[in-house]
């Protein structure tokens, strides 16, 4: 070989080798990532160096947990995979709550964590944490990459696993030397997942059996969860419910899968669900669970849940089926596909008696609050925002009473309209979620109904919203309490309000200090005006509504009771 040709051969080789960091960026772009969230640190510097001129929008939160919730909400709002990258040790540890939140609610996410150099692993090196060990139970899958040659494939696999089947967060731990090392680029697009199967289509015989059972049923009820939204099956659900003429109850995460303004909507079921949904479930002869998992907040006492009903369970996760409640007809597969098939086989039925009975419950026990009160009722604020946003806002929440009132009083009409931590119940989710959603959908009206204490947990992210000029609207339903905790103490601990209140700052001042718009409202008459002002803002706006302090969420199924044993129905009736 001549000297010249040897030289050109080696330069050709060089041009096709890349560093791990570059491979990460290239593979993210290959996977369609145009926005990501993350925070810096020593071992991720090689990666951040490659992000310097990558065509990816990058959002730095003020705390990794916030960033993780942002990526989660970005995913929930769009259906795309949310991406977060953080450093080793403390950075990775700060992801745990966010990953667990996403895991419980089946949100597709990919988290990349930096790790100390491969040869230091296990030595208690500076900023070393056993990230895969810590995050294993809160991810759908995780792994550490120890050879740069495996990097591209592993990232591809992560996106595939996160976004298919029952979605969930996937974490890849990347030692810094793997990000620095070079290798030939693997552009094969290949994956190696011999143990990963997704049941998509649902067994035709099960579908037919389900259809027969539905056609025979006199009093069917749909019990719909977040799975319908993940599957993008709202349209199919609506067609199915309307053709077969079946009332639809939804879980907290299922809200929006069926338009709550429609007559067949039974709204939310379960612990703080509507009386009519809970009565209907307890009285039905057929319960059709779609993309829901018989969570204890829904079923109450499992033994007496839907006692007269046969149960059809449609779910993509075989492990969800018969986990808590035995079912008669399981159909494993994608809800979209299965509902599309099912709709062909079901007959339209009047079910006049059934709907008349439900109408009676609806009339007698709607969600109510005392609208004549002179104080600001938290429900009134939600109602007012619902009116002024014409029910079209994208809504995020914290966790507590305000979350339940949001579920009860904001009528959701489309999927991915409500972003809330249902499974884990993570206080502090609301504000970063609103930010993640607004980043994803710049033109949407994004409202966060937050509790004072939930807001306290992640309010530092307000500064992120200001930096990116996001017009999010935060409505703090400020009762000066950990309201949900206070309610339990009132009902079950003899009103001993042990440690369930703290001294809060003036949130309007906090907002202004961080560069957002801050409004404080303590008069009922000012609520409408304040909401109007809030909706006009081009920058982040925080409204501190000083609401009735000791309002309770009704109805309520006390823990361990059947869902028809609701407390507070008399109180609600007295407000009629």
């Amino acid at each position, binding site marked *: 070989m001549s000297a010249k040709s040897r030289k050109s051969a080696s330069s050709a080789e060089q041009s096709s080798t890349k560093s791990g960091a570059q491979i990460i960026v290239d593979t993210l772009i290959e996977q369609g990532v145009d926005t990501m969230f993350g925070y810096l640190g020593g071992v991720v510097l090689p990666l951040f160096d490659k992000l310097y001129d990558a065509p990816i929008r990058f959002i730095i939160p003020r705390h990794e947990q916030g960033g993780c919730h942002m990526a989660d909400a970005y995913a929930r709002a769009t259906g795309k995979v949310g991406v977060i990258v953080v450093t080793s040790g403390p950075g990775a540890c700060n992801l745990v709550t966010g990953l667990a939140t996403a895991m419980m609610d089946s949100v597709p996410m990919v988290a990349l964590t930096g790790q100390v150099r491969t040869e230091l692993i296990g030595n208690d090196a500076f900023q070393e944490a056993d990230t*895969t*060990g810590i995050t*294993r*139970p809160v991810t*759908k*899958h995780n*792994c*550490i990459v120890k050879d740069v040659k495996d990097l591209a494939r592993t990232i591809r696999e992560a996106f595939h*696993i996160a976004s298919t089947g029952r979605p969930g967060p996937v974490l890849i731990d990347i030692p810094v030397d793997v990000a620095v090392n070079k290798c030939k680029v693997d552009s094969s697009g290949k994956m190696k*997942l*011999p*143990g*990963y*199967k997704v049941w998509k289509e649902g067994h035709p015989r099960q579908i037919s059996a389900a259809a027969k059972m539905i056609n025979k049923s006199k009093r069917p009820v749909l019990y719909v969860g977040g799975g319908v939204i993940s599957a993008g099956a709202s349209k199919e659900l609506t067609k199915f419910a309307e053709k077969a003429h079946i009332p639809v109850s939804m879980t907290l995460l299922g809200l929006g899968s069926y338009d709550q303004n429609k007559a067949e909507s039974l709204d939310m079921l379960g612990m703080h669900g509507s009386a009519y949904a809970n009565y209907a479930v307890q009285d039905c002869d057929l319960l059709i669970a779609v993309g829901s998992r018989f969570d204890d907040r829904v079923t109450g006492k499992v033994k007496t849940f839907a006692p007269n009903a046969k149960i059809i369970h449609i779910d993509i*996760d*075989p*492990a969800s*089926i*018969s*986990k808590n409640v035995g079912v008669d007809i399981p159909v494993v597969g994608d809800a979209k596909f299965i509902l599309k098939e099912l709709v062909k086989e079901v007959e339209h039925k009047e079910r006049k008696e059934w709907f008349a009975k439900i109408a009676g419950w609806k009339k007698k026990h709607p969600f109510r609050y005392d609208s004549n009160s002179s104080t600001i009722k938290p429900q009134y604020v939600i109602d007012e925002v619902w009116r002024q946003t014409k029910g079209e806002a994208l809504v995020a929440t914290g966790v507590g009473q305000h979350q339940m009132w949001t579920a009860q009083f904001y009528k959701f009409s489309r999927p991915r309209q409500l972003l809330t931590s249902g499974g884990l119940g993570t206080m502090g989710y609301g504000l970063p979620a609103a930010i993640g959603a607004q980043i994803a959908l710049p033109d949407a009206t994004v409202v966060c109904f937050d509790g004072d204490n939930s807001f306290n947990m992640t309010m530092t992210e307000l500064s992120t919203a200001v930096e990116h000029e996001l017009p999010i609207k935060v409505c703090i339903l400020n009762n000066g309490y950990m309201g949900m905790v206070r309610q339990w103490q009132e009902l079950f601990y003899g009103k001993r309000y042990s440690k369930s209140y703290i001294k809060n700052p003036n949130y309007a001042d906090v907002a202004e200090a961080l560069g957002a718009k801050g409004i404080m409202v303590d008069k009922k008459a000012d609520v409408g005006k304040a909401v109007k002002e809030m909706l006009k803002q081009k920058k982040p706006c925080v409204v501190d509504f000083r609401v009735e302090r000791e309002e309770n969420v009704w109805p309520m199924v006390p823990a361990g009771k059947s869902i028809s044993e609701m407390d507070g129905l008399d109180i609600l009736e007295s407000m009629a």
Partner: protein
Amino acid sequence: MKHIISALVENKPGVLAHVAGMFAARAFNIDSLVVGRTEDPDLSRMTIVVIGDDRVLEQVRKQLAKIISVVKVLDFVGKPVIARDLMLISISAPPEKRPEVLTLIEMFNGKIVDVGQKFVMVEVSGPEEKIEAFIDMCRPYGIKNVARTGTIAMVRHSKEA
């Protein structure tokens, strides 16, 4: 009730942690867990004995299958299986008792693998009940140490479809 479950898993670091972590997190009760290589270098076989009713068994099976690095899960419910444990046991066998002990070992098809002044070390394999019975029979003589592998199992060929 004890059930034997066998899982083919990817032969990669971290897989055992995934499986063990899942069992702990879901409060499943494991009696034994054996991991070993298979004829395929990319796969290992885990044989797990779990305690629980049918519902628990079904959940264990499904949750195992859900782990990404678990390739295939078999349970042996209703199937004729060969299940074996291997044990090394050190039994006290002073000269005056030695003939008795040797007879016992012979009855159980044990193999003496080491002999000392006071103790003999025996290798015994077989179904769990046999192993347990052997331990019981050895107790009166004095047991110094026991090491057991846990159960491994396969479906009988004669009953294969």
